């Protein structure tokens, strides 16, 4: 299992991550390790700092203080914010995925489904149309989009299909780490459940590591092994997901859990 003794060590290590926006705290002094194959949920309400933390981790925002190290494919831990632009962008389009809450932010809406999925392949040098299309069609199947939609653009897709397309677009290069920002937000409840099942299956099949930001404890429960609970920019509780949700220690976590159980 994962743990300090596991082979190769953690995939990602964050320490002292702090982000100020002027005087205002985005997040403060956050540290954790993410292990290969592990799914970490960052849970909190809006304004808790969870999205700021995610953006720092995914190098979309530069933290005010702190270090984020990532184990590159060559096995070396690198300081993410010390990577060159070229290294960072290569990492983002090959070894990482980023699933946005709103698929419009993660898709090219005027490009066909096949082109959306194929873009990363073309970005890393694939130059055979037939192979690209075949791989794209295969990935559409894996996210339950019919092969005959491969030439349609996502403007004609439902919200759930768009989100699944965004996931396929991210996974096609075999990333080791996927960031997800409220991946089921904005979807109908029944659609959410189907997407969560799909995500859970993919993460397990592919042995992906993932960092999932959500306000929804059900998402954390279904997807994650471990969770951080954030409030006011700080982590107020962390642990194995089942333990935190079944036996919350912090008063705030207890409140969150009890509010969901009342429904």
């Amino acid at each position: 299992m994962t743990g300090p003794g596991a082979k190769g060590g953690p995939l990602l290590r964050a320490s002292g991550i702090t982000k100020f926006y002027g005087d205002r705290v985005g997040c403060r002094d956050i540290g954790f390790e993410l292990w290969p194959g592990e799914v970490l949920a960052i849970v909190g309400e809006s304004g808790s700092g969870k999205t700021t933390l995610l953006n720092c981790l995914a190098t979309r925002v530069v933290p005010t203080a702190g270090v984020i190290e990532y184990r590159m494919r060559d096995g070396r831990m690198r300081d993410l914010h010390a990577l060159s632009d070229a290294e960072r962008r290569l990492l983002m389009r090959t070894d990482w995925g980023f699933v946005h809450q709103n698929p419009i932010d993660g898709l090219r809406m005027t490009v066909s489904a096949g082109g959306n999925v194929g873009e990363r392949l073309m970005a890393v040098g694939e130059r055979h149309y037939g192979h690209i299309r075949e791989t794209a069609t295969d990935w559409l199947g894996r996210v339950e989009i019919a092969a005959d939609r491969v030439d349609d653009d996502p403007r004609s897709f439902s919200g759930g299909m768009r989100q699944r397309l965004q996931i396929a677009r991210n996974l096609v290069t075999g990333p080791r780490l996927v960031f997800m920002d409220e991946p089921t937000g904005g979807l109908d409840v029944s659609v959410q459940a189907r997407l969560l099942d799909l995500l859970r299956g993919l993460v397990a099949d592919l042995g992906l590591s993932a960092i999932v930001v959500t306000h929804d404890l059900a998402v954390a429960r279904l997807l994650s092994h471990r969770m951080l609970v954030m409030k006011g920019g700080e982590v107020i509780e962390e642990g194995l997901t089942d333990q935190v949700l079944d036996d919350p220690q912090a008063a705030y976590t207890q409140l969150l859990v009890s509010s969901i159980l009342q429904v």
Partner: protein
Amino acid sequence: MSAGAYNFAYLDEQTKRMIRRAILKAIAIPGYQVPFASREMPMPYGWGTGGVQVTAAIIGPDDVLKVIDQGSDDTTNAVSIRGFFVKTSGVATTTRTDAATVIQTRHRIPETPLAAGQILVYQVPIPEPLRFLEPRETETRTMHALEEYGLMHVKLYEDIARHGHIATTYAYPVKVAGRYVMDPSPTPKFDNPKMHRSPALQLFGAGREKRIYAIPPHTDVVSLDFEDHPFSVQEFDAPCALCGAEGVFLDEVIVDDAGGRMFVCSDSDHCEERRAAGHEGTLAGAPAWSGAAAAAATEDAS
């Protein structure tokens, strides 16, 4: 307007030096878009102000200028740009490709192969080949800097997905010297192979967008494609109706009110030369199509 009212070739010497510096940088980094401080010209954007500024910066009193628009020397645009340089610089002009030292063009590369020492100046409306899918300039600049050109292939992929083949026929993207992806301006892809290892210097000026780029002589210019959908040029079913030329780019011309049409050389000078040399097409001897260009064949500076 008289020549005396202007500096030679309209632009002041300081502006020319600024443009020449941009041109030199462009030649040093083939295919790279160099920003320059585009000046107001006595013609609106869209009328070749970028090309005109490049030509004005490089032309000298001994040069012989040819100006073509869609392959023709006698369109309004070509005539007015040629007139502009006659008035402001007094240089000799010609319609003959092989007699020109500087050729300013919009939309075509002459059929007659260019030679060492010649300079082809393109008028460019939109210099950024990545813009169609990535409108943010900060992002396209980064993509060029990091050689991230996957997006260009997404465009070609979309062509094939929608049309079964690469349907892009104009402004077909090329990679220059194995490094920068470049928009060849709205020339037909038919002309792309002419850019490859051309002995002539090729300069591109975009006035509204304030960019200059270049292909030095003998530089590799490769059209982007897929292994299973290789680049190919347009082919025409029949030769030029006037001069019988094959393997040239043809324009469709409506010949009468009854919808009659024919295909003729887009490069009007090339067609003239061939007919003068005795080549005939199926409609050789047809009257209307020749007049002005032939008459202007050796327009003089005065």
